[in-house]
């Protein structure tokens, strides 16, 4: 790490070697996606699956075994029950640098205490960092990030950008245009919907540059959906308010976005007192919505799993002695019905929980209506890419497309696609961009430049205001 005194003022641009490797770090609120990319020395394209690592960006404390897991150490954890999380990224921006530094040290650099070394061994002096942040960041947080990267960690160069902007360099998810985008060149018109952990942002990109007046943010993200699911389950069946990890797994296993909310809600209703609907065992149509989720107990069952609902299971289990803890097989079951699709519905109708905001489709239209030209709007509507972890929910893309389709004019072409790997898409874009040396030379700020010109100049350069 850097051994220089903090008061150095000598310009380093003449003496320090130009960084030859680039570390692409997609710093998300839920996970970090990190990997190296070198310009055109290897012929093959960067492959998201093998070149990048996904590291949980959190510090977790378990009261059961009294251990604190930082970042990648979470993979060693055996018992996820009642795990308390603290995230250094709040609302999409790195706020708590102390925790973030701890996570970065263990995942990016060699950390002395850890025998097997870090996930990636990075020498910051020789590496340029491509760091992502959420759009519309407060300037103070941007300055903090720049200072930490250069002064504390000592990276050789930095390019700080918004995550959607990197997506423009990734291969196009639409089959008709996929073949024609070479590495290192951005797509022409792209509307990126980043459904992330903290929030969902909508960013129209023109040749990789965002049209700022049309960027919008919807304050519903994966975290909101998980918390809403926690509330619903706790009110109806079983108190899971302290089980972040478990409810996150339940959400990933079981939740989906329904294409016709009213009909699905009808299917799952038990009926009022005077008009009882048929209950679930006689093969009626709500059988496929209500599921039984088997909870993990971290001794025999390591990971929960859903299975189709069986109304008599509790009675049978009691008869067989299962679940009573009397030495046999133990199985705790959570019955999940309409929470499966009601919780993700808040992405499309945030007013359901009282949030004064339009849903995803409405926000997309709000964003596009600020653009002056109808042609631009149509161009963006024809190239909508959904990225981010929350977009992995089944049915989200279909529902978004249906809603957009029904709201805009019939003659307009609407194409909505989900990126191939939504979690690593921005990383992939960054990796492809980093292979193009010219682009990198234009946008990366080296350490020498940072110390010479100061943080305000650097911030303006990243915002695209200087020397484009």
């Amino acid at each position, binding site marked *: 790490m850097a*051994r220089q005194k903090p008061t150095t003022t000598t310009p380093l641009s003449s003496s320090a070697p130009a960084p030859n490797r680039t570390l692409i770090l997609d710093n998300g609120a839920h996970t970090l996606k990190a990997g190296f990319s070198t310009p055109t020395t290897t012929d093959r394209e960067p492959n998201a699956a093998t070149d990048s690592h996904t590291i949980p960006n959190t510090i977790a404390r378990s009261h059961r075994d009294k251990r*604190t897991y930082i970042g990648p150490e979470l993979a060693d954890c055996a018992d996820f029950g009642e795990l308390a999380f603290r*995230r250094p990224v709040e609302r999409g*921006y790195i706020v708590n640098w102390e925790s973030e530094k701890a996570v970065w040290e263990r995942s990016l650099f060699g950390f002395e205490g850890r025998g097997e070394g870090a996930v990636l061994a990075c020498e910051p002096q020789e590496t340029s960092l491509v760091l992502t942040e959420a759009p519309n960041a407060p300037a103070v947080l941007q300055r*903090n990030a720049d200072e930490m990267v250069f002064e504390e960690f000592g990276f050789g160069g930095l390019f700080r950008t918004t995550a959607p902007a990197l997506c423009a360099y990734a291969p196009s998810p639409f089959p008709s245009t996929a073949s024609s985008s070479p590495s290192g060149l951005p797509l022409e018109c792209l509307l990126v919907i980043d459904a992330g952990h903290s929030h969902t942002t909508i960013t129209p990109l023109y040749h990789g540059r965002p049209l700022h007046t049309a*960027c919008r943010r919807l304050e519903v993200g994966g975290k909101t959906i998980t918390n809403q699911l926690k*509330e619903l389950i706790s009110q109806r069946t079983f108190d899971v308010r302290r089980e972040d990890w478990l409810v996150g797994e339940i959400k990933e296993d079981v939740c989906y976005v329904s294409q016709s909310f009213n009909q699905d809600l009808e299917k799952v209703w038990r009926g009022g007192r005077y008009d009882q609907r048929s209950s679930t065992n006689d093969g009626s149509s709500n059988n496929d919505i209500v599921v039984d989720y088997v909870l993990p107990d971290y001794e025999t069952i390591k990971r929960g799993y859903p299975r189709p609902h069986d109304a008599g299971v509790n009675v049978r289990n009691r008869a067989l002695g299962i679940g009573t803890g009397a030495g046999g097989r133990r199985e705790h079951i959570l019955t999940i019905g309409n929470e499966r699709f009601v919780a993700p519905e808040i992405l499309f109708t945030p007013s359901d929980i*009282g949030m*004064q905001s339009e849903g995803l489709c409405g926000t997309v239209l709000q964003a596009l209506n600020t653009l002056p030209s109808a042609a631009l709007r149509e161009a963006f509507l024809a190239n909508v890419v959904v990225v981010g972890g929350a977009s992995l929910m089944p049915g989200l893309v279909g529902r978004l497309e249906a809603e957009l389709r029904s709201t805009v004019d019939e003659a307009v072409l609407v194409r909505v696609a989900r990126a191939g790997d939504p979690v690593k898409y921005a990383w992939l874009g960054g990796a492809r961009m980093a292979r193009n040396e010219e682009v990198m030379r234009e946008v990366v700020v080296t350490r020498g430049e940072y110390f010479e010109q100061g943080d305000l100049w650097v911030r303006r350069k990243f915002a*695209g205001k200087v020397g484009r």
Partner: protein
Amino acid sequence: MATGALRFRTPHIDELPTTQSRQAPGFAWVAVAGGAQEDPSKNWGTTNRKRARVSLGGQTDQQREAVSAKQQREIERKLRDLNSDNAKDVVIDLPKKHGVGVGGVKAGKTTNTKKILASGKNFAHYLDDEEAEIARTGRRDGEAEAPPPPQRASKTPLARRKTREDSSISGSPAPSTMQTGPPLLPRGAQALPHLRANENDIENEDYDDTPTLPSDAEIEYLLSLPPLTYTQARAAPPPATGPAPRRFCETCGYWGRVKCSKCGTMTCSVACKDVHDLDKCMKMYT
């Protein structure tokens, strides 16, 4: 059956002399207008809030507003909880480093980084700082020049002022520089027919609906606008003419059809309402 909570408010009874008195029950119910509400000696008040609201001259606007403000605060508290990153004030101390790293001062290498690492601010603080900065200096950090001041102290009488939108508060979060931009932009809409006219000179196709992309200069202008601030970029609320927010049953999640008279939450049916009354009611009421 006058238990503690219920008291009958007997209206004031006068026995009217009639010409024919029969052996009839010795009282008659007579409705007297006003009654106990106006006579303080007989108005014991009621602990039933609903009756008090309705009968004692109705609620004033102030009281109605207080009730809805309380509900609003409750909703906002729930939303903050939903969007909170850390469950219930989790405090996790970072373990000390195993051995001191080479040259590594634990708290950061330069004064700037020491300050950053030691600061306990969370996002709300940074946001407030940013808002204060903008309010104070009128511009965002990092912009080349200040945007033209949105409004001078105008001497135009109110009747003749045109309404301007205030950028960070109103529902349409466009920055104020949009309105004072170069004339290219507002003329974009009218520029299109003249662009289209050129297209039609070449081919005699249909005139109507093939809009063309705006010119490069316009797009460059759009790209060069400064990024929005955090609050400006937030999605705006739906228009007031849209459908009302949907209410769901608290117990089972179906549509809410019946509103609980005490706490206002909705349930879908009598069965769910019973469950609500047993366990969940009166939560907001304490």
